[in-house]
């Protein structure tokens, strides 16, 4: 069966980098705020520190988020914010998802 005759849009076209639960949560948080720190994202995603670091690195490598490492007093502070490219990609992903699920 050819893809042309498919009755609904294919999910294979979605951005696989975002189509991973933890990374979509990270982008969902960052799209709603100016920036969020590592600890907040850790609590929100319920990931381990190592896993979260890996996911953040992947998103940063794709240019979807910006990571700024600084200090607040003696404690290290890692601030993450979404880039315009990340924002656009996330909105596009949500649109594709809604279309696939039969929404607007």
């Amino acid at each position: 069966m050819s893809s042309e005759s498919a009755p609904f849009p294919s999910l294979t076209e979605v951005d696989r980098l975002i189509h991973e639960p933890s990374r979509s949560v990270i982008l969902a948080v960052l799209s709603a705020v100016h920036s969020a720190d590592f600890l907040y994202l850790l609590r929100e995603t319920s990931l381990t520190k190592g896993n979260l670091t890996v996911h953040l690195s992947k998103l940063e490598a794709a240019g979807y988020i910006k990571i700024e490492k600084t200090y607040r007093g003696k404690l290290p502070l890692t601030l993450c914010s979404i880039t315009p490219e990340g924002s656009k990609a996330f909105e596009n992903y949500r649109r594709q998802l809604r279309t696939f699920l039969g929404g607007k």
Partner: protein
Amino acid sequence: MDKNIQATQKRAVQYWFTDGLVELSGGVILLILAIYFVITALIPETTWGTLSLFVTMFLIAYAVRWVMQRIRARTTFPRTGYIAPKRSWENRRLLIICIVFSLALLGLMFYLALYHHGAVEWASALCGGILALIFGMAGFETGLVRFFYLSAFCLLLGLVLSLGGLGNFWGVSILTISTSLVVFSYGIITRKYYLRQSQKRGGMPDEQ
């Protein structure tokens, strides 16, 4: 799945209000505004005097907001993590609301300054309406019910004061003092709950 994304985004927006500092700073700013109204009601003065007093109060209010944001960065970050909300220029709707509100407030100040005491019997209702609009918008943006209660409180108190013959500066003073106390109480309760629920993190790094 999209609902889950929306819920995550909502939680992130609501997180800004979990530590009670917004209410505490709001309470202080309202108290400063109340002091301004009391001074204006007590001392007969020129338009320029009123304007300079208003500008001073405005600057103090911004300073309080700045201090509160620094406290937040130092207290919420080691406990439950820190987020910075979208800046006003990133949120177009919020920017428009802020501009409209500032213009409305400035207009009210000038009107009261020019016509003074007895000339405006509805000032309390107007001020209550503006405060109700702010709290209503905050409730709409965050989905937190307590802001809708505050909105209703301000609207009702403003109307009661105006209808009770206290529509002048004294009425506005009573309205802002009462609102500041209620907002401050909300802040203390929320802050206590937050500090009890969250534990301060030790000196460990935030990753690796």
